[in-house]
Structure formats: C-alpha cells, structure tokens
C-alpha cells in the first residue's frame, strides 16, 4: 500500500478509536510527549500498560476466586487498573473500574465477577485496537512516511 493510503487509514482508524471512546484525550497527550529523543514512547508506555493490566486482571481473577474474597484487595487492584488505564487514555477500560469499585464496596462477589468479565472484554478490545494502530504506524514508517497526528 502506498504511504498516503496508509496514512489515511491510520487517521481514520485513530479517529474512530476516539469517537468510539476506546481512547481519550490522554492518549493524545502521550502522542504529544513522543519526540525525537523518545520516538517509541507511546508504544513503550502502552506496552507497560498491557503488562501491568494483564497482571492486575490475573490478580483480580484469583482474588475473586477465593472462598473468602478480600474485597479490599480487589478494590486496590481495581483502583490501580483505573489509574493506569486512565493514564494511557484507555477510556472504556477506565470506565469499567468505577462500577467495579462500587461492587467491591458492596462486597458483592457476583457483581464483581461480572465487572471483571466486562473489564477483561474491554481490555482485550482496546489492546487489539492499539496493536492494530501500532502495526499501521509501522507500515507507514516502513513505507517511508510520517505518522500523522490525530487530535
């Protein structure tokens, strides 16, 4: 594919991610932080986010799987997930955290499990989307083009 086309696809894709709420303004902030001294900053941060989230989701699964659920611990994990997802701009993931925390407060295991399920789904979705985005970026760069900025 030629560069122009790739770039247009990229812009379209990025715009849709914002429109559909997968990403928010914070992601743009990350993009703005990227510069020549840190050319892979966004990828780096998002990778950290993936690692961290997967770990947290695992921890959450285990915690909710206990006979006596430690809701404080669960809440702590969700809180952290909220923090990291909001920092990268993964808006839908972040939005799942709020009801999740409420369920923890109510100490409702069933509700928590449902929240966990939902958050996992959102996480996988945004992960997928971001990976697609990065691939597009790589293709653009490989084709010799510059990555367009999308607000």
């Amino acid at each position: 594919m030629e560069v122009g086309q790739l770039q247009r696809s990229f812009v379209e894709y990025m715009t849709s991610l914002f429109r559909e709420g997968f990403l928010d303004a914070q992601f743009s902030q990350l993009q703005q932080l990227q510069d020549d001294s840190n050319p892979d900053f966004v990828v780096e941060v998002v990778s950290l986010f993936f690692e961290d989230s997967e770990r947290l989701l695992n921890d959450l699964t285990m915690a909710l799987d206990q006979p006596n659920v430690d809701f404080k611990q669960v809440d702590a994990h969700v809180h952290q997930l909220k923090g990291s997802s909001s920092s990268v701009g993964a808006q839908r993931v972040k939005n799942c955290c709020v009801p999740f925390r409420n369920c923890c407060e109510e100490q409702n295991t069933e509700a928590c499990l449902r929240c966990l399920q939902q958050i996992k789904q959102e996480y996988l979705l945004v992960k997928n989307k971001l990976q697609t985005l990065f691939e597009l970026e790589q293709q653009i760069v490989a084709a010799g083009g510059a990555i367009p900025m999308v607000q």
Partner: protein
Amino acid sequence: MMNIGSGSLVSVPSCTGSWKSGDVVSDQFPVGLRVLVVDDDPTCLRILEKMLRNCHYEVTKCNRAEIALSLLRENKNGFDIVISDVHMPDMDGFKLLEHIGLEMDLPVIMMSADDSKDVVMKGVTHGAYDYLIKPVRIEALKNIWQHVVRKKKHEWKDNNYDQSGSVEEGDRQQKASEDGDYSSSANEGNCKNNKKRKEEEEEADERDDASALKKPRVVWSVELHQQFVQAVHQLGIDKAVPKKILELMNVPGLTRENVASHLQKYRLYLRRLSGVSQHQNGLNNSFMGRPDAAFGIISNLNGLDLQAIAAAGQIPAQSLATLQAAALGRSAAKSAIPMPLVDQRNLFSFENSKLKYPEGQHQLQLNNSNKQTDLLHGIPTNMELKQLANLHNPSESFVGMNMQVNSTTQHNNSLLMRMSQSQPRAQMLNGANNGSQVSRLPLSMQQSLSSEGIPGAVPAQSGIVDNAHGSVYNPVSQASSMVDFSVNQSKELQSYNFSLGSNSSGMSTMTNRGMLHEEVNSDIKGSRGFPSNYDIFNELQPKSHNWSLQNVFSTFDASHHASIQGTQGVSSQLLLQQGISSTHNSEQNRNVPIGKPMYSNGEQSGHSNPMGGPQLNSVGGNMLAVKAERFPDADYQSTIFPVQFGQDDLMSAFLKQQGSVEPVETEFGFDGYTLDNLPV
C-alpha cells in the same frame, strides 16, 4: 526544599544558602528542578517521568516508597520536590508524605486516580502541597515549581524571623539570655520575655512590611493548646473542624487558619502516637517510633525539653504532658519569655539527670516510655493536648517549659496544672529541686511524670539538678540530644513528647530522647506537613538545615541548661540564645544536623554539646527547623545526648517548676552554653 549550597547545618538562619525570598530562582528556573516521583504503577511512572522531563525537570523515578525515602535520606539536598501516589502497596502515600515532611521538609504533591473528597482532604490535612487527580496532564506538572518557591519563601521568612528575633520563642530566649541576667526567677524571664516580645513584635512588624507573606505567628502556649485539645475532644476528633474548634476556643485574634494548621499538626501527632507505641524498644526505636513524643517533649519543655524527653519516649506521657504544660503554661502564664531559660534549665536538669543515669535508668526510662506510649494512648486527651500544645509552640513551649520548670513552683504549677499532669509535675519539680538525688532523678522524673504526679521524680530531679552541674552536662547533653530529636522530630514529636512526659517519668522521656535524637534526624523534617500555619514549627524551621538545628538546639539547650543548672533562668536563656546562636555557628551544632532538637544544642553549648550546637538557642520553636534538614550527622549528638539530655532537661524543667529547685546554680550561667562541658 532546596538547600542549595547550605552546607552546614548550623548556619545562621539568615543565610541558609538556599534561596532566600529575594533570591528567588536562577534565571533558568524552574529548569532543572529536581523531582522525585514515586508510584507503584509502572505505566503512570513512565508517563510522569516523560512529562516531567519535557518540563525540563530533573526526574528520578521510584516505584517504592521505602526506596524513595532512602533516596531522600541519602541525598538530603538532592531533591526539590516529591510527587507521590497515594495508594502504594508498601507504604501508604500519606505516611510517606508525613515522613518526608518530618525528615526532609520537602514539598510533596500527592496524586491519585481517586478524586473523592475525603482522600483529597486527607492530602490537605497531611500537609500535601497539592493534590493531582490522575490521569495527570503535563500542564499540571509544569507548575509544580511554584510549591518549591513558595516553600522556600516561607522558610526564608521564618528563618529571618528567627534571626531577627521575631521568632517568638527563639528570639525571646535569645534575648533573654543575652540580657545577661539570668536570674532564675520568673520575673526576669518575664522581663526579658517582655522585652523580647516587644522586640519581636517590632521585628515582626518590620517583617510584615517587608514580606507580604508574613504571617503572624501564633504561639501555641500550653494554655492555648489545652484549649485547643479540649475543643477537639469536645467535638470529637473526627468532627473537629477548624471552624468549630475556633469557635469553641473563643480566643480573640486566633484565626481559623491558625487552628487549621495546628490541627493538622495535632493530627499528625496523634497518628504518630498510635504508631509510636510500637516502637518502644530501645531508645532508638522509641525515638523513631515516636517522633511526636520526642518532639512533643522537646518543645514542651520549654518547649523543647519536654518534648525531647517525651520523645525519648522515656518520659511518661503524663509527665511529659505535665512538663509541657508546665513549660507551656509557664510561658503562657508568664509572658513566656523570661522563663524559658529557666524552664529549660529545669528541663535540662531533668533530662540530664536522666541521661546521666546509666542503663538502668534508661531502662527505666525505656520502660517508662513504653508505658508512656501506652499511657499516651490511653490518655490521649491530656497528653496529646499537652504535647500538641508543646509541639505547636516549640519555641513557646520550649520556652514556656523551661520557664516553667525553672521558674518557681508557681509556674510549675501553672503549667503543670494545665496539663492533666500538672500536679505531678509540680511535684516533680519540687522534687527535682531538692536535688539531692541525682540518680533518682530519672526515676523520679518518670514517676512524677506519670499522671499520678511527680512525687518521686521531683526529688530525683532536684538531685540531679543539683548535682548536675558538673554531671549535668552530660545528662544534659543527652537530654539535649534527646531533645534535639524531639524537636527535630517535628511537631509530631513534640506532641508526642508531651504525652510522654506526662505519662511516664522523665526518665523515659529521656531515653526516648536519646533515641529520638538519632531518629530525629531522619524525622525532623516531618513538619513539612504543616505548612506555614504552624508557626512555631514553621517559623523555626530555617530554610537550611542549620537553622533547624539551631532552633532546636537552642531551645533545647536553653531548657537543658535550665534543667541542669537548676533554675537558672538566665542560663537557660543563655542557652537558648546560645543555642540559637550556636546553631548558627557551628559550634554547637555539630550535631544538629538539621533537625536536631534544640536541646542538643543547648547542652552542647554549655557543655559541649555534641549535638551540634545551636540547638537550644533557637528555641523550641526550632523544632521545626530541625526538621528542615535532619542533620546528617546528627549522630554525634544523637547517640549520647538524646538520652541524657532529655532527662536532664526534663528534670531541670521539672525542677525549675518547682521553683525550689533551682539551685541550679547557674550552670547555665555561663554564657549561654553551659552545656559545653557536658560530656557527650
């Protein structure tokens, strides 16, 4: 805060080397601002790092609070500001905030994804300079430099105040001592204090004109603090909001802001208390554990002495409280100035005597302190009150304490009375005055400190005091060291000390103090948590390390001397003054690394305070100062002094209170640093 360039701890407040309000920043500021960012979330940490770098700041990132603390401790001047997450697995962000405030006195910005009101409020009450909600935007980070400047400016003012004598306590004491006639009588103290007051007021006025940021300092005398504590208890600690407290207290001229900052400190102090009980073990432990206590003790004693003692953990909370109350009360009663020295002396003697005592005593003290801790908890109201009061008025209390102690019994009674323990205190003082039982002092102190009264202690105290002259120094030193810690410990210590004093006999306090001393260094800065409102602390805290030390020491010294000397009001004063001066100078200070409680200075000054000199002079108030920077080498003093000094000082303080005691001969008489001879 950036102590740029201020190397010695004892530097004169005015020239801390770090920024002065006028200095402002370099042309490039805030470029190069040294930020330490702490967050267990790797994603956020990386993002913050990048954002801060983009702001041209020098960033160090850290994912564990413990590591952050050790980084800060190793590099006292290595950072200008800290940004920390609230929720961290290894340590609560607020706890870290407290530590930093106490030990390093750096501005701390909290951040969290949690934007609920109570968490944000917690940040405020813990003294966070700002609270950022995640996700943090770079725009929010761009302006964090303002907190550094603001803080420095404030400290500069405080320092300057101190220097020019505007500091309530320090100045007063200094002046008093400078006056030269240190008669142990309260009158003199009063006169001196009055004089100082005027001078201070004048200076303050000048300062006001000079600096727009100047805030009138509220000296939290024992009385005032007691009123405060009563109000708080009446409302219930959870419901105690500054506005209501202010209303209940009904003190003309007191602002909601004053109350708010005092409340903040008080809360920290309470928090420390609960944490302290765990640390009873060893001087050091107790010291660390109870920064409040120590602090409280020191400040109370003469603000400082008591606290130091308390901090030492050795002084039973009640005793401490009493002492503190006495000290504070005295100051309050009297006019607070003249007495400080005297009280201090008493305190010192008390403490000294304690210190002097060998392990056994310390053990006693330790035990006591342990008890105290418990007591403290058990008797929160009184002790806390007292301590808090003491804390708040490091200078004041310190002075007050000393004064009280030294001054006649009536002072003692007044102060002591205030405190729940007051009675025992009086007794203690009396006993101390008797002086013959030096060795018993610590014990007696302890006993006396305990709520039941200070019957036992008194005699011992006096004994110590009497004997102290020569030996006093040593104990004093210890006491001072202890005190130093207390002072340094920052407000918390003070408050804590307060309780300690009240609860247990002075001995325990002393012990704690010793430990405190060592620990103080690290905790001194704690007070950062209390921004400016906390007059005593804030003001005392010099920007530079030295200043803090000075203050602390000064106060301590003063008290210390007082205690040692007996009631030589003068000496105390001298000590105080000297302490202050010494702090400036390095002679005393040595140890006082920054936060060292004034006590140590006090002792040293007269005696060879290992601590570092200037401690006392700065007057209890300096406890805050101590905080500023922890003395890097507090070790000198801390080890020896803390323990000893505290006791002696405490004893002295007690003795002084008794009024009778004082034979104290004027050990303090020498020009201020009677403690020189103290074998540290």
